[in-house]
């Protein structure tokens, strides 16, 4: 039945977003992008794609930051177009997408204020999708309580922060804990929300969000080795969703080294590949945990892209909107990576991006 009436409110936007999606760069685009000698070439190449001449009015010495900014701006414009044309429940769903960015921005601002950075500089670095108008006032706060009472209480993030009000002082460690607690709450909330808006959306979003949760769980585990974080605290940060939950999470909460993490991942078919080569890399080189983590991150991104691509296989659901934003974000990361490699003449690493289509 949802499929029957889906197009009444969201058919137009789904069409739009699928159109946007067909504009993402393909393998051949990347192939020609990687051949570029200079950023000028890069610009010429990009102007033949859907990006068009978005750089045409930039004065000549291009910087990678400009490219990334302009590309992000395109994504933001597209997103805002979708958002302003959407009605409930899609508009709420799109809002949920922005919450993730809002959390990032909040954490960025708090960290920045803690290290006494310039506020305006910090504001510029915020992701444009996660900007809300009381955001600048975050700089005043010195503890979580104040943060919550003065600014966050009226944002949609308020319920997520309610759980971590106990953390008294703001230091790097606590901020990290806050970030993860908040993100955990966000993911769980999004997961529940996705269940309420139709079975197809739920199905698609659950698989993506479950992976997102697992990724965070694994990351938290690996990052908390040899830190002050107690195991009980660690367990609290794990999102209560995902494919590793609950048994895997329990093991991870007690894990002490990376091998235990690997064993947990072995239990889920799709995650088995995460540690495949890293084992051999660890044995013959001294990459250590850091190297594994870096490689793992890359695999996570690949997995994310893969899951988001799958979202486009189903029609009459909202997952495509989420996936489009994520894929486009990945594409911008790719473009920036290639541009950076060209700018710094690091040709040997230019192929280390994650192709989408």
């Amino acid at each position, binding site marked *: 039945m949802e499929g029957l009436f889906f197009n009444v409110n969201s058919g137009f936007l789904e069409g739009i977003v699928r159109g946007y999606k067909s504009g993402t760069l393909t393998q051949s685009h990347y192939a020609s992008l990687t051949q570029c000698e200079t950023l000028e070439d890069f610009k010429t190449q990009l102007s033949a794609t859907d990006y068009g001449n978005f750089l045409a009015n930039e004065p000549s010495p291009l910087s990678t930051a400009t490219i990334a900014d302009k590309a992000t701006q395109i994504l933001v414009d597209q997103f805002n177009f979708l958002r302003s044309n959407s009605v409930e429940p899609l508009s709420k769903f799109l809002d949920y997408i922005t919450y993730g960015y809002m959390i990032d921005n909040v954490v960025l601002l708090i960290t920045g204020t803690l290290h006494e950075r310039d*506020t305006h500089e910090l*504001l510029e670095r915020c992701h444009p999708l996660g900007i809300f*108008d009381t955001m600048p006032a975050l700089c*005043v706060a010195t503890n979580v309580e104040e943060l919550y009472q*003065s*600014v966050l209480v009226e944002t949609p993030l308020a319920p997520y922060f309610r759980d971590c009000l106990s953390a008294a002082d703001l230091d790097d460690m606590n901020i990290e804990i806050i970030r993860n607690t908040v993100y955990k709450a966000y993911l769980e909330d999004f997961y529940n929300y996705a269940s309420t808006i139709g079975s197809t959306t739920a199905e698609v979003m659950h698989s993506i969000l479950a992976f997102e949760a697992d990724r965070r769980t694994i990351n938290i585990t690996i990052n908390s080795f040899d830190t002050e974080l107690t195991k009980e605290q660690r367990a609290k940060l794990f999102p209560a969703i995902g494919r590793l939950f609950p048994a895997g999470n329990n093991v991870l909460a007690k894990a002490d080294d990376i091998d235990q993490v690997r064993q947990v991942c072995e239990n889920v078919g799709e995650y088995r590949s995460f540690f495949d080569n890293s084992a051999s890399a660890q044995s013959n080189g001294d990459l250590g945990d850091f190297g594994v983590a870096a490689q793992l991150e890359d695999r996570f991104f690949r997995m994310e892209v893969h899951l988001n691509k799958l979202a486009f296989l189903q029609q009459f659901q909202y997952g495509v909107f989420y996936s489009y934003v994520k894929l486009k974000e990945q594409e911008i990361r790719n473009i920036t990576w290639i541009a950076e490699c060209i700018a710094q003449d690091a040709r040997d690493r230019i192929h280390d991006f994650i192709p989408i289509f």
Partner: protein
Amino acid sequence: MGDDYPTLFRSEQMSLRQFLIPTEVAHDAVAELGELGNVQFKDLNPAVNPFQRSFVGEIRRTEEMARRVRFFESQIQKEKDVVPIRPLYDSSPLVTVGPSAAHNIDELDVTLAEHETRLVQMNDSYKTLSERTRELVEARHVLRETAVFFDKAETQQTDIRTSFDDSSAPLLQHDDREQQYSSTVQFDLEFVAGTIDRTRISTFERVLWRVLRGNLYMNHTDITEPFVDPATGTETRKNVFIIFAHGDALLAKIRKVAESMGATLYPIDANADKRSDSLREVTARLEDLETVLYNTGLNRRSELLRIGENLARWQDVVRKEKAIYETMNLFNYDVRRKTLVAEGWVPIRDLPMIQMALRHATEESGTSVVPIVQELRTNKTPPTFTRTNKFTEGFQTIMDAYGIATYQEVNPGLFAIVTFPFLFAVMFGDIGHGLIIFFAALYMISQEKKWARQELDEILGQFFYGRYIILLMGLFSVYTGLMYNDIFSKSLHIWHSGWDFPEPGSNGASYAVSNGHMYPFGVDPAWHGADNGLVFTNSYKMKMSIVLGVIHMTFALCLQLPNHIKFKRPLDIYANFIPQMIFLQSIFGYLVVCILYKWSIDWSTRDTEPPSLLNMLIAMILSPGKVDATSQLYRGQGFIQVVLLLLAMVCVPWMLCMKPYFQWKERQLIEGQGYVGLGHRNGGPRESTDEVLEGEEEGNGRAIVEEMEEEHEQHDFSEVVIHQIIHTIEFCLGCISHTASYLRLWALSLAHAQLSEVLWTMTIEKFLGLSGIFGTIALVLVVVFWFSATVFILCIMEGLSAFLHALRLHWVEANSKHYQGEGYLFTPLSFAKLDEKE
């Protein structure tokens, strides 16, 4: 060589030419050819990435120049007072060919860069200055508004204080009194004042209230005039705010929040004297700054004016340069990299002009090496190039929209010039409406020069583009209107009518009596208003549309013939054209003859009833040979109909089998002589070696060989058969459905006539009888309404629908009879077209 005159009948004869152009002349030669607009260059290095081509550097440079020019343009557009841009035809051209070309371009590049830096500098200083002015203006506002506030507060303050005096502890009384005596009222509350964006004020207030837990007193007022950002021209509206709070920590917090929310703070003294002092100071500084700002603005404007003088020709040059280098990127270098090799399609008729242009380019550039043009043999289909002028352009576009004619095919666009307006007019026949659109078109044509230069909006632009079509449509509508004797649904009495109406009889009806006159042209006006008038026009228009339809289809079918002769396909004449013609004529041609025959007979003197032709046609196919004696049209009808039906029946297998059979036989013959198609059996490897071998032999002539390979048509026998079956079925069914389709001529012309009559009777006719002053006013009003309805509903809406149907009759009914439309358009490098595109 081609025919003597350029003709619309067939597209131009084209030839693939190779140009060998010395590198130093290349730029000038391409420039000349671009001005000429006659050569469509081919991409000789399709495998090369766009940024690996030879002239990327130059393109990049022109792009940079184009960016600068765009920057100037946007700056000029943003300027509030209009900066005049001298139009291109008015400014002296910048020489970009010849020996000084490179120098000129360099100079232009430098000039553009200079102008840009100057403009950017001026913008910057203008911006900083206006920023400072804005700050000062804001400061002034803050001072004024807070002064108002303080003044108000002062009067209230005393009240509060007196009340304090009465109730509070007497120990403090002394202090209080001292304060009261002092000239100014001292505030023990400290405050922050400044300005903030109006949209943010509520958020700001909310955040502050929460941060300070309500320990503040905030007041704000609107600044009435908006602040205009000089760079973007956007307006922002701001508010002055003043916040009272107690304690340094709180004030610091307020300051921090305010700053992060984008507010600007101004130090304001609580002392009224100091405030007025600083107000005076601010005003004085503001005056100074405004003079400076004014001068800077004046300078900037004069700079923009200077740029405006030249902008149009800069744009022109940059655009052309870019096109030239993009074209040169399609070329190939020869082995020694001394000459550029280009290939392109050229209309044979224009070859002398091209030669001239190339020679001219050589002379201009001052070298003696003339570019060489040589013909390349190819079996690739050349592009279709139909030369049009402003009159034929519209009609040709109508046909091109259906499909571009195959090279040298008979072009239906030529015949559309007459048939299109005619079929339109059959549906639109009304003298009055025809005249309206005729004069509308005439007006557009008279404004042609002026309108062609300016940008028209989308809808008007389309009408303007089709102005000559509309002109002819109007003219033909007047003609058909005369035929139908319709002018705004009334009829004209030009000649003596052939019918008299005697006094009405007993039942009030009057029967027309023939008076021996014959109305010489068009429908007798006596039919108008007659009870059986509609029955008459109905049957008349229906038959007429069948007659016109069959004539139109026959004509379209005949257009096959010149194609078959031109392309030497005698088999198609015998196997397609002749049976198709017989099929069409034996059924529908016969129907037309019957219609004409039936019209020519005076049925009132015959003893038989006039037969229904529709039933006759159905009976002819369903029960051949049998004709009812009561509905017989002529003697021997049964026999003739059987013969015609047999003829049509024979044509079907004829169309179906003859062409495939002969092709099969021909192939047998060829194979019988021992020839075997190489391409089919072991073609793959052989072809590639061919290519390599010939490539080695001919060096840079490889491009020619590659083309030849592409065009091997697969003569698969089954394909021919299937194609022929589809073709036959389509034609036979098409004949029936297409003939019926022409009935839309009848339907639309009837609808048009009825609609205009309804409009007349519902509006004007009711008010014609009224007398007196109100009657006149009502009549005037109703005439206005009637006229606008006539224009909008009958002329524009009905006209568009008739246009659509005429279009369909051409595209589907006529074009399917002969038109292949598999060509591709000739798109030459042309600077003139470049301008149009912008």
